């Protein structure tokens, strides 16, 4: 495609400008605003979103249906057949179908959890910024305590004591990263309070609720969205880690970590069971991190 564009004739036809250099510059300019890696990441995210939305429709088989005679079939280019493009597992379940459902479950859990973390973080951050004094000190102590403990240990302890259910698991994941969002929300709200617009609406008699929800929140939303985006892949990693250990999503449900977890037992005879979900995890977390970093650079005026 690049070759074609470098050909002066086709560029002249394409752009209609008649100058080779403008078209070339346009191409460079395009890749400067949209770096190839970011494009690839956005493409993968769009693709995953599609998979999440239409998972049961695109999955060629039911993810739980077993087919024992054709178990441990390798993927299509490694001696397998097109009926199971990514091969089958030890019970003859189609790896592609399981992968599609797993992506859906992992992404939905990460999304819900990030929403919970953001709500909790923004609420506590705003409360700290509004009340200051003792309330703020208390919230800061909570933030410090949360930040000083590895979250995985807390999650494991809670799962041990309270048992595992899907609701509890999502709520538990929702506690991941709230402290970072709270810290950012507090800092931004405190500095926003000192800006003209907040003072203006306050002098007009707006209630604190109105000032925070209708004026401060929209103004700091871009930074918050970036930190939520960066939280998202970490939740996927945490969820897949716990599911890998067999302590997260429980069978017959499946998630990406879950698939890697049982695929591990077949690492010698059927490595594709474990590699397919691994690639999906890495591509997803990598894409979201790339887009998150890119958005942060776009939104952060200090970097320009």
């Amino acid at each position: 495609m690049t070759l074609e564009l470098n050909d002066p004739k086709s560029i002249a036809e394409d752009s209609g400008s008649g100058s080779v250099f403008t078209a070339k510059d346009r191409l460079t300019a395009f890749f400067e605003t949209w770096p190839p890696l970011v494009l690839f990441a956005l493409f993968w995210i769009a693709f995953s979103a599609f998979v999440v939305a239409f998972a049961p429709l695109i999955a060629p088989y039911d993810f739980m249906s077993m087919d024992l005679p054709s178990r441990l079939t390798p993927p299509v280019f490694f001696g397998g057949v097109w009926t199971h493009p990514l091969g089958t597992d030890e019970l003859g379940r189609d790896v592609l179908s399981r992968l599609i459902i797993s992506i859906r479950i992992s992404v939905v859990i990460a999304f819900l959890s990030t929403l919970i973390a953001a709500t909790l973080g923004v609420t506590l951050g705003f409360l700290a910024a509004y009340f200051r004094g003792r309330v703020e000190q208390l919230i800061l102590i909570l933030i410090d305590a949360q930040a000083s403990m590895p979250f995985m240990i807390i999650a494991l302890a809670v799962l041990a004591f309270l048992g595992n259910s899907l609701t509890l698991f999502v709520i538990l994941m929702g506690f991941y990263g709230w402290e970072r969002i709270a810290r950012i929300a507090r800092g931004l709200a405190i500095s926003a309070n000192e800006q003209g617009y907040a003072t203006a609406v306050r002098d007009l008699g707006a209630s604190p609720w109105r000032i925070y929800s209708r004026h401060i929140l929209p103004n700091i939303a871009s930074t918050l969205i970036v930190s939520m985006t960066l939280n998202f892949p970490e939740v996927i990693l945490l969820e897949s880690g716990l599911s890998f250990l067999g302590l997260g999503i429980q069978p017959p449900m499946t998630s990406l970590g879950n698939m890697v977890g049982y695929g591990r037992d077949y690492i010698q005879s059927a490595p594709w069971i474990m590699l397919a979900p691994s690639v999906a995890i890495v591509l997803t977390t990598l894409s979201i991190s790339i887009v998150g970093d890119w958005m942060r650079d776009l939104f952060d005026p200090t970097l320009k």
Partner: protein
Amino acid sequence: MLRYTLLRILRALITVTLIVSLAFVILRLSGDPAIIILGPEAPPEAYAAFRTNWGLDQPIWIQYLKYFGAVSQGDLGNSMRDGRSALQVVGERVPLTLAITIPALFLKILIGLPAGICAALYRNTYIDRLIMTVSVMGFTVPSFVLGLVLALIFAVKLGWLPSGGSDTWQHAILPILTMGLIGAAVIARFTRSAMLEVLGQPYIRSASAKGLVWREVVTSHALPNAAIPTLTIVGFMVGSLVAGAVVVESVFSWPGVGRLLVTAVANRDLAVVQVILLFIGFTMVFANLTVDLLYGWVDPRLRTKQLQAGS
């Protein structure tokens, strides 16, 4: 300096209190602690003794205080599996975990620090891009995936190293490598941004303006200042020497604290889980406190500035 130290110690104590409270709350939320700690098959006298000992017949706030008493005396119940003291069960796994996490920590620093400094000094060149791309991979590849891929290559395909267990020193190589590579990516990224921040400071410009050789500027002006933020992340890693190996130990069936925690959670051996939670909490708080105090010692500005900011 005294005030700074006291304030830090006070905050560490508050965090310890919060962690013990968390353990108390989830312990109480999960049902009758006597059954949970002693197991369902203990004799009734043991339950009765436990209940009076921990004051379970008294108001909740007295129970709360008694729980602190029990924790401070190390009276944390017995493991459900073999009836030994949970503290002892956890204690004998600690050296095994440290045997892989300490070499991994050295590996992280040994790779991460030079890589980060290099990336910052050659900013926006191919060296920088290469290091940062590898580093981003380290952030986004889960440790169990990296561990399994390494096992697939070095144990299954090449047959050079064993894939699981702890019989010989060769068994430790893959776990150390897995943790080391991922940690190195984190350190490299941190060091790079710390270095870039320092290199943009006016005193670096003055140093090169007064005619210092660039090497001299870097070693005597940039590096010491960039060391301070890097210290935080290394401190966190020291604190998680015990906690950081949960997944990797499970991947390689390494019988350390992390593996013990996972099996204890799966079997609901709650006394053991509780001991590990508290133990890791205490080591983290202690490591953070040490780093904070080191911080104040390395950087005199922090002693005064952070006090005023109050955070």
